[in-house]
Each structure stands twice: as C-alpha cells, then as structure tokens.
C-alpha cells in the first residue's frame, strides 16, 4: 500500500493516519522487527523506520539514546534495509526516516533502488531540504519513492510552497520549534502550520510530528491534521521496559491508545 492509499483510506474513514517511529536495530535487529510488527498489528497505519545515525541533530534524548544503542550493537545500513523488508513483508506501509549522510555514502541512486526493492514506499529527510536535494528528487522519481520534506513554524510562505511542491505522499509538519520528544501539551503553532500547508495544496496530506505522546494528544492533532507522527513515546516503551515482553506489551497498549486517538476517541 502506498502512503497515498493509506491517507486516502483514513480520509474515507473520517480519521487521521497514525505513523509510528522506531529506530532500526534498536535494541537489536530482530527486536526492532518484532517491535515494528507489534506496532503495525496494534494500530499504527505507517511504520516509520529511523536509520540510526551518529549525529542526529533533529532528535531529542530518547531517539538519540535508542540510535546510540542500535549503533553500538553494530547495526548497518544494509540491516535497516533488511528490517524494512521484513516489516513491509507483513503488509504494513513502511517509510524510512534518515539523515542524509548515510544515503550519500551508500550512493543516492543505489539506495533509492534498494529501498524500493525492500518495499518502503517513502523516505523522510530531516536534514535534507529541497534546495540541496536535486540528486535525491531524481532518484526518488526514478524508483517511485514518495519523498517527504519537513516544514516548520518558522518556514516562510514561499518556502512552504516550494517544499510542499517537492513532496510526494505527505508533508511532515514539525509542530514546534525544537527536536523530537514527547511534550506535556500540543504546540499551538501546529494548527496554523497545517493551515498554511493546505493553503498551498489542499490535496497534500499533512502529518504532524514532534511532541505527541498519548491518545488525547493524538486526538487533538487528528482534529486538524491528516496524520499523527509519534516516535519518542513509543520508543520509550521499549527503552524503559525491564524485559522485552514488557516492552512489547507497553508498545501494543500505547499503539492501541494512539489508534483510538486518531479516530477521535481519546
């Protein structure tokens, strides 16, 4: 299923899409596959696989820590592709979130080819803006991978128009000025940002990320956005658990709570 299909289906059902993020290889390759499958089974419509990177400047402490654990355990780029293949194989819609340098090192065209072959339908690039993305845009077109760039409350209208014009599938709206991580309340800047994106392109689905950690917040965001993106709160289920079974139980419970939330049932 493409990202467009997922958003289309959710729209027909009168609800928002739930995107759940998990770093590849955290805490091990197999455990991350199990976590992602559990998330998909428990209500995440899209699994956002984050490629662990040594210098994740857009990420707060939870994702940093999970990425460090994955890297210390030896996860490689090719493992991330293998994980994507294993998760996409269950029928879940999978997108990759990755900082740019690992892709450049792999080879942009080769990576797009292998990502498509692994079954991912899209890629989110937190530190690649369209201004620098010529090679990626061409490769994504070639292998029909949806490319998601970020827009921010600080983006000018001109940049929102330019960025949305380069997105396929959905655009990632960062709800607040800051890094990833659950917050106690949803940013007031988010509804305005979503409205600004819609003013440019009413048909482009908008996913809102940064700061959402529970069902009530998911419901709040679902009221004005097409997608709710949750990362740190889900990762914390695994990070804070005493054993893998507890981690999976908490992951399923939170995924289910968030899935209720995006259906307006906090």
């Amino acid at each position, binding site marked *: 299923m493409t990202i467009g299909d997922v958003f289309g289906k959710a729209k027909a059902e009168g609800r928002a899409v739930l995107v759940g993020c998990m770093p590849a290889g955290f805490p091990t390759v197999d455990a991350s596959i199990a976590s992602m499958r559990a998330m998909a089974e428990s209500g995440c419509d899209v699994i956002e696989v984050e490629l662990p990177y040594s210098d*994740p400047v857009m990420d707060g402490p939870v994702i940093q820590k999970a990425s460090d654990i994955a890297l210390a355990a030896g996860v490689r780029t090719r493992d991330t592709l293998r994980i994507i293949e294993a998760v996409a194989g269950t029928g879940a819609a999978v997108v990759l979130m990755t900082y740019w*340098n690992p892709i450049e*090192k792999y080879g942009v065209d080769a990576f797009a080819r292998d990502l498509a072959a692994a079954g991912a339908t899209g890629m989110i690039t937190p530190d690649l803006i369209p201004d620098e993305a010529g090679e990626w845009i061409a490769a994504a077109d070639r292998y029909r991978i949806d490319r998601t760039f970020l827009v921010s409350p600080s983006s000018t209208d001109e940049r929102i128009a330019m960025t949305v014009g380069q997105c396929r599938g959905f655009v990632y709206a960062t709800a607040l*000025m800051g890094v990833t991580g659950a917050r106690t309340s949803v940013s007031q800047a988010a509804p305005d940002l979503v409205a600004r994106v819609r003013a440019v392109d009413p048909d482009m689905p908008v996913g809102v990320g940064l700061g959402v950690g529970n069902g009530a917040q998911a419901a709040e965001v679902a009221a004005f956005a097409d997608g709710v993106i949750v990362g740190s709160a889900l990762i914390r289920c695994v990070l804070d658990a005493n054993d893998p079974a507890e981690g999976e139980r908490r992951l399923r419970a939170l995924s289910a709570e968030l899935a209720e939330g995006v259906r307006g049932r906090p």
Partner: protein
Amino acid sequence: MSAPAMPDLAGHFGRFGGRFVPEALVRALDELDAAYRAAKVDPEFQARFADLLVNYAGTPSLLYRAERLSAAVGAEILLKREDLNHTGAHKVRNVLGQALLAKKMGKPRVIAETGAGQHGVASATAAALLDLECVVYMGAVDTERQALNVARMRMLGATVVPVTNGSRTLKDALNEALRDWVASVDTTHYLLGTAAGPHPFPEIVRDFVGGIGTEAREQCLTGLGRLPDAVAACVGGGSNAIGIFHAFVPDETVRLYGFEAGGDGVATGRHAASITGGSTGVLHGARTFVLQDDDGQTLESHSISAGLDYPGVGPEHAWLHDTGRAAYEPVTDAEAMAAFQLLCRTEGIIPAIESAHALAGAARIVPALTAELGRAPTILVNLSGRGDKDVHTAGAYFGILDDVETIVPGENA
C-alpha cells in the same frame, strides 16, 4: 586574477558547502545572511568592529621574523603572532564580529560549542563585553579534561552545559548547540566557532578572521617589499587557516599549505586529518571531507591538540584542496610536539599545540621549496594561538611535570 566569487549565493564552494539542516533553521540562516550582507556595507558596524579589533583585541598582530627558528630550519620564517591577541588566539576576531552581528539582529542570547574550551572562552568574553547571555555546550569528556577553561567561562558569566550524549566531545557539543538553536532561533544567535557548518557560517567566519591574511600580506609588502613564498597554517575546522589564506588566494606565486592533525599517523586510523584521511560527506550542515565509516557514520577523531580534534573541516578548504590551490598534509602528534619544543627553545615562545602543527609542516616543506626556488624560501606561519592552555598536556608529554597535585592551594584545606 581577481578574488574568486566563492561561495555562490547558496553557499557552495564548488561541490562543497551548502545547507544540510532541518528546515526549522533555514529562516534563521537566511536572516543571518541578510544581516551579514547589510553589516558588510554598514559603515557604523564596520567602524565598531575595527575599533574593537584594534583597541580591545590588540590587532593588527605582529609579524615577527623568527631569526633563530629560521636558522634552525633553513628558511626565513615569519610568524603571524595571533597568540598575542586578547584571549590568546585568532578566535577573538570571529567572536567579536559575530557578537556584534547578534546585537545588530536584536538577539540577546548567544550559544556556542567548544572542544577544549578556547572558543567557549572567546565567546564568553565577547558576550560579557557586549552584554549578551551566553550558553556554551561542551562535551562531558572535555569539561573534565579542561576544568580551568570551564572556570574561565563561568567567571566571564557564561553557563557551561556538559554534553553527555554520543562520544561526549566536540562533535556532540556541536549537535547539542544545533538542537538548542532549533528551539531558540527567535532569541538566539549561534556563535559558531569555525569556518564550517551551514551557509552562511563558513563565509562569515572567514571574513571576520580574514584580517589575519590582509594584515600579514600588507606587513610582508611593507617589511620585506615582497610576498612570502608560502603560507602555512594548521587546519582543524580551519578558521585560522582560511583567515590567513584568503588574502593570498589570488597571489599565484604564494603556495598555501594546510597542516591537519595526523594524530598517531593517518595509517593508524587515529587522527583528525579529514582531507587527507577522510572522504566526501555531509556533517554539521555542509558537504565537505568527513572522517566516516563505510555507512557514513561519523568516526571519532584523535589528536593531541584538542582544537584540531574534529572529524570534519570547513567546506572552503575542501574546495581549495579540490582545485589544488592549497595543499593539505597531515602532521603527527610527535612532529607537532617536536616543533612545539623547537619554538620554545629557539624563540622563547610557547605556541598552542594547534599552531605547532603549522610550524612542523613549515619545517617539512623547506627542502622541496629550497630545491624548487634555488634559494632558501620565505614561509609565513600562522601562530594562531598561545600555548598556556597546553602547558599541562605538553608537560605530561615531555615528562617534565613534578607531582604538583600535592601543592595545589586549598586542596587539603
């Protein structure tokens, strides 16, 4: 040959540079770019900057003909004495320029990253002078190693935040400063410490430290009646090197040499030589040369010199390397420390270990240059900083420290 129009409007030096940053930072970078363009042609800004450089920082720094060192290495060595500037290094030029820009942009807070603490101390100094709030991010490994610099920053009124994630060194301090900036751009200027990072930082920092080269070029013409045969500088992020190179880039007869930190030797993998031992990649906002593994994960760098211990390099150096206009070579810890000792003993000057890399490199190129020119060459070396901060490292390296721990005042109180 006119001065090259680099970078282009989007901050590219050939295939290097640019902006690889979260969208959230783009507006702040655009604002900084606009403020800098305006400041460049604002007589009031330029007059204030020039006044601070002269009356506060103590520039122009001397150009000193090092007779005994010259005799020892068989060349005429000219030292650009940036070590005599206020705060003891070339970095004061950059922080004064950027702190003035922060004021001009109406931003009451500056943040900075620091490795050994030199840029942190310089930033805290400029912030105190210009009444700005200052927060310095420093790897937890470094706050422990450089407790005196932490104290200096605090004396100057700055807040020092130890960074405990990643490798807990300079690159992680830089990541943390970027994370702060993403959340605080409305009120905060990121006072980046070297000629690296996303556009327009490499250009701004180059221009603020560019006085090193314009002064030295003028001093050569006035004092010698000619230009040097070569210019030598150490390269970590590369601000002192680009500062002294830039004015000489159009002078085709002047060879430019950048000496990177070779650590234990590039072949050992324990080094910080991004150009000679790294590969093209993207780190901290720009495309440049990076120390990285096969997956593009950043590798830890190693150098006896904390100021050169960084796994990337400014994009303009990557471009000068690509075009062949400047040559980059590694200098090992051992070579640098031998040059450190030589300068101490021949000239009575204790250099920063960073600058000792430039001295060692300069001595190395003498035979080839002599053969090429048919005479002893004249080499301009950027003595980018003083060695007070390195006394403990050098003392330990040379095994000349007595057991001083027991006589620290107050220790047993």
